[in-house]
């Protein structure tokens, strides 16, 4: 008789034994954007035992064309991606334990999450976090599957600690400029292609078939139907600071969070206060209402001012959309949110 996974068990690369193993494994998906959405859905549908997904953002209208877990209602209500993802994933498969965290991933808060995982799927959108994942993967010997795209072009690589080169061997520094969805746009088929390669490799790892892994850096362009597999046998560096003999894990050196942290990008400035704080959303809402339209749910409060928008997260972070100017952002932060503090 047909069971839930019968067509997957029929595939010779998985089988009934593979299905059983899959159901005992734990996947960590870092980021619930386009790649994280697609890969999490595939693995939850496939029946992985536990899936942890983390993301710091909330759903916006410009995400919907490529981020398959979300609906218009999620954009309308500014649902945090991690929470919206979990809701959809559990409606798809309640047998998978789905853990979701609204979290700004950093070396310290990722450390515990990576340790508990059998594989890490890269669903992030920047190389800062990928170099942190890379160090954690080496430190705790958890494989991670890199994926990235822009336009119609994507790439993927499966990093196996002690066996393949690591990201630091391949790229000796964090690329200072790289093509992203903000510079080159993106079409959904390029997302699906990248995710398909990532989840295929994940299925091999989760069914204990390391010998079947691809072992090449894969490049592809779905618009031009190009594909190239690049061998990486000579790339591993014995003096690599992340995977070499005298490794120091340079991206795990915790910055001391003693002052306001400010990140720029995408016409947005992120401000993180020196210590974690909890806001009183009701009090904040009634005050901010005098300055602009206010919407909120239990995770986030959004206030639309005349020329920009404040998104205040329960974990303390504030995103100021509509400006790239740090001084302006800091000014708004102090004026409206953290009046009492420096």
């Amino acid at each position, binding site marked *: 008789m047909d069971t839930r996974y019968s067509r997957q068990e029929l595939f010779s690369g998985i089988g009934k034994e593979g299905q059983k193993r899959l159901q005992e494994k734990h996947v960590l998906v870092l*980021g619930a*954007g*386009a*790649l*994280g959405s697609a890969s999490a859905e595939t693995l939850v549908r496939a029946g992985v035992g536990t899936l942890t997904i983390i993301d710091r953002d909330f759903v916006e209208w410009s995400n919907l064309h490529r981020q398959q877990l979300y609906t218009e209602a999620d954009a309308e209500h500014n649902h945090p991606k991690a929470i919206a993802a979990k809701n959809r994933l559990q409606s798809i498969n309640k047998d998978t334990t789905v853990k979701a965290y609204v979290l700004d991933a950093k070396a310290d808060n990722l450390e515990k999450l990576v340790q508990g995982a059998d594989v890490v799927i*890269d*669903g*992030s*959108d*920047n*190389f800062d976090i990928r170099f942190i994942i890379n160090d954690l993967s080496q430190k705790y010997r958890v494989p991670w599957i890199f*994926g*990235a*795209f*822009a*336009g119609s*072009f*994507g*790439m993927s690589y499966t990093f196996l600690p002690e066996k393949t080169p690591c990201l630091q061997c*391949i*790229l000796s*520094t964090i*690329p*200072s*400029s*790289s*093509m*992203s*969805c903000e510079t*080159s746009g*993106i079409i959904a088929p390029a997302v699906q292609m990248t995710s398909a390669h990532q989840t295929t490799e994940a299925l091999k790892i989760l069914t204990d078939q390391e010998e079947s892994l691809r072992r090449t*850096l894969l*490049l592809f*362009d779905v618009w*031009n139907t*190009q594909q*190239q*597999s*690049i*061998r*990486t*046998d*000579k*790339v591993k560096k014995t003096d690599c600071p992340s995977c070499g003999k005298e490794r120091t894990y340079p991206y795990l050196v915790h910055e001391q969070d003693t002052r306001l942290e400010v990140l720029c990008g995408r016409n947005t400035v992120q401000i993180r206060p020196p210590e974690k704080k909890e806001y009183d959303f009701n009090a904040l809402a009634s005050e901010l209402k005098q300055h602009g339209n206010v919407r909120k749910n239990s995770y986030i409060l959004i206030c639309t001012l005349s020329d920009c928008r404040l998104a205040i997260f329960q974990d303390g972070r504030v995103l100021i959309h509509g400006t790239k100017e740090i001084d302006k952002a800091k000014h708004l932060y102090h004026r409206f949110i953290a009046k009492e503090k420096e």
Partner: protein
Amino acid sequence: MIKILFFARLQEEIGKDSLNIEKAGLTVNQLKQWLEKEHGLHSLDQTMAAVNEDYADGSEVLKEGDTVALIPPVSGG
């Protein structure tokens, strides 16, 4: 002859997906510099390269008949 394959933004910048040139003897880094100067490509220093489908570092010397792939990093996810 050396064949160069372009991916992603490089394809758009140069307007084609490959180029054949007579530049055996150059290193990968020298080839990048030549492409920046002669074909107006930008910021090739962070572009990855593969020679005959083997990942290559900048000091690798190109031989007659080699195929070089130039791969700009992409970060979207």
